[in-house]
């Protein structure tokens, strides 16, 4: 059928219900979305009413208090240290898990599934919640933040490490086996050289994420610039808050830039 020189070119749905099926599915999705929107109390009227207040908040932030920088240096560096050591601990925590969480190296499918679930659990708990737990356990300070990032990061690193191991070329491994080389040496000389570039990429990606996370850990007392951010807000020093946000932005952008350069170099 041609209308005004245009033709509707779509392959008809292959299901038994045909176009009716698409219609019903679409209607169901629309109802579900409407339901969730109600639950989330999405209200454009509220948004419109709130706009002037947002503007007020922003104008109170201006201009940022650059003098506050003197106080921020230490806190900013503390966040960076937390990110770096959170990453390092995360790597070491992930190492023992990742070999067993890789389908091709795991001694038994049950071990593989168990290890994957352990890693999922580590990854499943948000850094802030982990930080709260560690602050309660070992007290306020950056080390609680390091541990929080390490546990969450190990979950993610372990999974990515394991997936890199699953993607290796199995040929060399077979050659090692045929030469009677034991499991440990096979991992050191056959597996690690193959996964190293990918692992390094993953580690730097995790460092990026950790820098981002370390800037908010201070909100729950786990060290770093987040503490300054939250206290300046509580004291209504919005110009100081603006300075904190600027520093956080600068840190995150700088690590992303440096880390993506390094990752490009490894490949």
């Amino acid at each position, binding site marked *: 059928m041609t209308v005004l020189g245009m033709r509707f070119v779509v392959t008809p749905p292959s299901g038994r219900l045909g176009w009716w099926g698409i219609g019903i599915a679409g209607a169901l999705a629309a109802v579900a979305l409407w339901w969730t929107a109600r639950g989330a109390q999405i209200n454009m009227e509220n948004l419109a009413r709130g706009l002037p207040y947002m503007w007020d908040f922003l104008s109170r932030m201006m201009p940022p208090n650059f003098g506050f920088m003197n106080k921020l240096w230490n806190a900013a560096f503390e966040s960076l240290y937390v990110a770096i050591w959170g990453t390092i601990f995360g790597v070491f925590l992930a190492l023992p898990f990742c070999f067993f969480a890789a389908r091709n190296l795991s001694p038994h499918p049950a071990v593989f599934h168990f290890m994957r679930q352990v890693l999922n659990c580590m990854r499943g708990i948000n850094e802030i919640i982990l930080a709260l737990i560690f602050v309660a356990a070992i007290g306020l300070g950056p080390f609680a933040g390091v541990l929080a990032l390490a546990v969450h990061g190990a979950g993610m690193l372990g999974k990515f490490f394991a997936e890199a191991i699953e993607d290796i*070329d199995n*040929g*060399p491994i*077979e*050659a*090692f*086996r*045929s*030469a*009677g*080389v*034991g499991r*440990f*040496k096979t991992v*050191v*000389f*056959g597996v690690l*050289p*193959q996964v*190293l570039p990918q692992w390094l990429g993953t580690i730097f990606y995790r460092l990026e994420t950790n820098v981002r996370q370390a800037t908010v850990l201070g909100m729950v007392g786990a060290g770093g610039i987040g503490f300054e951010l939250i206290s300046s807000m509580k004291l209504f020093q919005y110009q100081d808050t603006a300075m904190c946000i600027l520093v956080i932005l600068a840190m995150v952008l700088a690590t992303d830039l440096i880390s993506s350069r390094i990752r490009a170099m490894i490949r």
Partner: protein
Amino acid sequence: MIEVRNLAKAYGKRTVLHDISLSVRAGEFLVVLGPSGAGKSTLLRCLNGLIHADKGSIVIDGKVVNVGDIGNREKQRPIAMIFQQHNLVKRLSVLKNVLVGRMAGVSSLLALLQLFRDEDVEIALDALRQVDLEHKAEMRADQLSGGEQQRVGIARALAQRPAVILADEPVASLDPKTSRVVLGFLQRICKETGISVICNLHQVEYALEFGERIVGLSGGNIIFDDTPDKLTLDTIHRIYPGLEDPGMERLLRTDRKTKPQAVPPLARVATA
């Protein structure tokens, strides 16, 4: 000297190898000829324990090794293997790839510290010398050409000081010129060191040129086991059913006439 006795292997109901028996003298170059799926690869893998055979035994240096112990290094001299895709670790140096052949006897801790016995390093370098690649020992494996990588594969097998080298389609992914160089090295090593070679091939021409003896495998059975000059067109048709290749007849005829068995000109290439 290695003797295979009544080796059999089945995957579920599909029998891949029926009761295979064959023997190879020390320093003999045996070619196993057969189409894909004839069981050539399975045969070699059973011989070095990568696959466990269902029954049978092998005799190495007069010592009987039963199916369960094949590949067990305490109970037998090593049987080394060369693979179609060379199976080198691409990011490791050539030397370290060859050292894999010595690694079975190295302590894990020392290996982790990248420490190897002088003696093992000498054996590895000597193996590289035999494939004429000693000057590339420090290069990364992936910087070498396909033919050179396969020669490193040969050196790795040599470094194991094996009784037998099994070569599974070693030249299947190489061009004709490189293939002949690689097979030339393998043949020379076989003659000079007295290591037996069992080499899977699917190209009849290479089998005729390099094989001292040819074993024809079809459907998991040995249907031919003799010197290349006994190989007839009829046998080739039994190994490759339905083959239509007018050149094959010519190949067999010319081969009979110009067979300079002992040391082919390739040996010169090898030493060059």
